[in-house]
């Protein structure tokens, strides 16, 4: 399982990549067992032909490309039996929360007006930020999260997402809007404004 010369895929490195893959897959599939299977499949497929890699990150890019394909296959499978555009109670309550951000004239209430996050890019280097980010993603309703992750993590364009999940374009926009609002409000509350006195 190693490249012929130079860069060698060692067990310790593989364990690290595997851990990242598992986290990525379970976030999107929301099913630990399924995630394990998908990761195993992807690893086997990636390492089967003993390809040579220029380094750790080249190997990781390759493995994740395969993993993304395997995840999409699972999502496709799952969508044959579920209606992605159906509104669950969680989705309905997220939509109600969104409506409450506005006054009757559909402008922001003073408390709900989105804040200035300053230089949020700096947070991307903080380990704690990613813990909050993960928690906020997990907090999104399942179907909402699925559409969002296909768009932003698996980097499908909107038309492809609609096609894969058999939903209309406008439905897709509604779901992505819901996801982005849920996520930004969760981050605002738990990271960017955390500890800031609001009253």
């Amino acid at each position, binding site marked *: 399982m190693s490249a012929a010369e130079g860069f060698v895929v060692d067990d*310790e*490195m593989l364990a*690290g*990549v595997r*851990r*990242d893959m598992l*986290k*990525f897959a379970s976030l999107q599939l929301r099913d630990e067992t399924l995630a394990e299977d998908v990761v195993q499949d992807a690893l086997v497929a990636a390492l089967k032909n003993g390809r040579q890699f220029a380094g*750790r*990150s080249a190997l*990781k890019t390759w493995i*994740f490309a395969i993993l993304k394909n395997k995840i999409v296959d699972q999502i496709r499978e799952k969508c044959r039996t579920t209606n992605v555009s159906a509104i669950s109670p969680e989705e309905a309550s997220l939509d109600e929360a969104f409506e409450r951000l*506005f006054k009757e*004239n*559909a*402008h*922001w209430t003073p408390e709900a*007006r*989105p*804040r*200035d*996050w300053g230089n*949020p*890019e700096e947070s*991307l*280097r903080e*380990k704690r930020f*990613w813990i909050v*980010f993960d928690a906020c993603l997990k907090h999104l309703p399942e179907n909402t999260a699925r559409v969002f992750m296909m*768009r*932003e*993590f698996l980097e499908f*364009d*909107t038309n492809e997402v609609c096609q894969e999940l058999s939903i209309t*374009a406008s439905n*897709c*926009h509604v779901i*992505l*809007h819901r996801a*982005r*609002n849920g*996520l*930004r409000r969760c*981050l*605002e509350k738990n990271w960017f404004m955390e500890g800031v006195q609001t009253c």
Partner: protein
Amino acid sequence: MLSCKEATHLVSEGLDRSLTLPEKIQLEMHLAMCKGCRNLKSQMSFLRQACKSYLAQEKGQTDSTRSR
């Protein structure tokens, strides 16, 4: 005149499709006057950036634990 609620939809859709010229004009006019919606637009762009960095940060984290 666009409301803030309508603006949030256009800002989000702007990340997924090209807005029409009238939509762009309406949105720009609204954003010029509304700090809250300008913040919302930056926040939503940041979400995209964060998702793109997601895999990179995992790599960074494992690398740094390994070198310790």
